[in-house]
């Protein structure tokens, strides 16, 4: 195993991310190769140098500001009620419309199915009325007016 083979595993070796067999191979190479040992030492120095960047801590206001920001996005109680009522009202109107349509459709269908009977019922109700009754007066007036209107 030469330096080029080792080079690609050196980073993972340093991070303890190599499988045991490969780790042993790298360790064995490092025992005999000054150049690779030197490279590893430089990388370790780089890693230590990175400690110069200190850790950050949240400010005391962090949690409060986050809570306020989340609260801002929440709808108020009236808005929540409105959001609930709008779809419910829309559904109720739609249901009412559907019901009216259903009833009207049913009547039309019945009329279309039995047109003669509907007409017969209508005419029969005025065909024979007792003399001098209200119906008789209505029919005589209607007969007297109709010819004039059609003229």
């Amino acid at each position, binding site marked *: 195993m030469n330096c080029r083979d080792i080079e*690609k595993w050196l980073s993972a070796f340093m991070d303890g*991310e190599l499988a045991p067999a490969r780790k042993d191979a790298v360790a064995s190479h490092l025992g005999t190769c000054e150049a690779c040992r030197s490279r590893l030492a430089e990388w370790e120095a*780089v890693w230590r140098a990175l400690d110069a960047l200190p850790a950050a*801590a949240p400010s005391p206001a962090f949690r409060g500001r986050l809570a306020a920001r989340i609260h801002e996005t929440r709808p108020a109680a009236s808005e929540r009620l409105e959001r609930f009522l709008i779809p419910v009202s829309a559904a109720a109107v739609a249901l009412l419309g559907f019901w009216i349509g259903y009833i009207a459709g049913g009547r039309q269908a019945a009329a279309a199915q039995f047109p003669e009977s509907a007409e017969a019922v209508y005419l029969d109700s005025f065909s024979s009325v007792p003399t001098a009754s209200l119906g008789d007066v209505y029919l005589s007036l209607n007969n007297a007016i109709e010819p004039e209107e059609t003229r």
Partner: protein
Amino acid sequence: MQDTDLMLRVQKGDEAAFNKIVEKYQGRILDLCTRYVGNPADGEEVAMDVFFQLYRTRLDYRPEAKLSTYLYRIAVNRSLNRIRDRKRRRLVSFEWLRGDRPFDPGAPEDDRPDARLETKERESLVRRAVDRLPEKQKTALLLRKYEDLSYEEIASAMGTTVSAVESLLFRARETLKKNLRPVIS
């Protein structure tokens, strides 16, 4: 309580569960974001964005995903967006890049003026070297060095493979070795 259980409770509207998640992860996320964007004020804004996004998209969370990885992914994306925005608006904090302000006011410092100067110079050099790394190398390096994530976790947070992470860390180390020569020699 496990993170997944906490998130499932958050999805049902449990505010206390969300607070527990924030409490558990705020240090790590803030640390990553601050190191990523290069200054504490921006870092805190980005960290807040991360938790806000977690809350806003809580219903999208799937229990199969590890919450910490999910948060790191959001943190990296948000940090990158902040850096890109800043570059676009040319609002780079030169004051911060010069290292005039302490990173953490509470951090212990050596009392000798020359030692303080040396510490600040060193810090400034390291920060500039890290900031100059290509985005992916920088992400892999920060997650490994400061968050102590495994290669597999880094790969998951970055949406890449373990071998790609290995390669990114190799290149990051090589680049830093050149750029940090004055510090390590």
